[in-house]
């Protein structure tokens, strides 16, 4: 239960909310648990599934957002990855593309190496980092209802946004055997080029 007495965020609740609330998103999931959770639940959504690029997920998402300003880009980041790339948060704060929605699934754990605590387990607040780096919107969504509310606020007024969603650490299960990176890239590029820029 969150502070507001709601249910706890889960991979299932967070991904379902993104799929329900954001029309036609381009997804950039962090390597490991987020890519695994997305592939298991929504294998056909256009996504740049990552098997590498540790610490660089949000920067990849920034590049996608700059190249396709007409599409909403949803980064599904992890707390450990983002902590590795805090400089990239500052770069996003400089550019602030309105089509970039930066979601952080914060399980306060290194999910790929056995769940060791990350710095967020000791009180580091990534939404405060984003706010200090000039993201126009940086909020914490303690439960599913708050998360949906944050997404709806983004849709109503798209501005570069970080939403940090704390969730309990739990092994999401083995990653499905996905396509090779080069095929992931091919399909993602084809999706991006499907509708040429105006």
């Amino acid at each position, binding site marked *: 239960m969150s502070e507001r007495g709601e249910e706890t965020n889960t991979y299932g609740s967070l991904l379902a909310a993104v799929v329900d609330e954001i029309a036609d998103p381009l997804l950039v999931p962090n390597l490991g648990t987020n890519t695994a959770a997305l592939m298991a639940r929504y294998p056909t959504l256009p996504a740049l599934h990552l098997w590498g690029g540790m610490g660089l997920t949000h920067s*990849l998402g920034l590049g996608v957002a*700059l190249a396709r300003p007409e599409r909403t880009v949803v980064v599904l980041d992890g707390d450990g990855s983002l902590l590795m790339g805090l400089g990239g948060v500052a*770069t996003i704060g400089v550019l602030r593309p309105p089509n970039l929605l930066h979601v952080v699934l914060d399980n306060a754990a290194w999910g790929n190496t056995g769940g060791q605590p990350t710095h967020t387990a000791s009180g580091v607040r990534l939404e405060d980092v984003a706010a200090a780096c000039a993201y126009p919107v940086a909020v914490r969504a303690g439960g599913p209802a708050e998360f949906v509310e944050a997404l709806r606020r983004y849709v109503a007024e798209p501005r570069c946004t970080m939403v940090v969603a704390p969730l309990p650490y739990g092994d999401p299960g083995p990653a499905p055997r996905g396509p090779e990176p080069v095929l992931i890239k091919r399909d993602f590029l084809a999706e991006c080029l499907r509708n040429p820029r105006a």
Partner: protein
Amino acid sequence: MSSDQRTVSRLSSTLVPELARFQVELGAYVPDHLISGVTDELRDRPGFQLVAAAREDEGLAILAGAYTAGTRGVMLMQSSGFGLCLNAIASLLLPYQIPVPMIVGLRGGIGEFNVAQLAGGQSVAPVCASLGIPYAAPASFEILSAILPGMLKTCFSTGRPVCVGIQRSLAA
């Protein structure tokens, strides 16, 4: 400095038109004084977007994301920052076959005063060799002009990064 006050460096007049010919529309950089003439020109170039990254690996990731979304990019950095790029190259650019030309200002060569630049600068060529990344550090503008089209062709045709080291003698 505004563009009318600046004399375009010979380095940028060699590099920039060739990048344009290969439809490179995006750049990322971390400043380096050896190649600052190039970044200065790209910053003001119509139809080109230049992004200041906080770190060099982050710059490569921005360009990788843009490439997967249909936009070609170039990375500009100093050899000291190339040392931060191994993860981005090895776990992102190479497995996903993402082409990014890397223009690297070389420290650590003959005349270097700073011992902290020596090993890093000298490591660029062997690191590229160990990763299978085409690398050249042309000794003159004539050689740079001669190899650049081929480097960019190999980069974008084979879907892998290439590295052009810029020696101090080409910086003027």
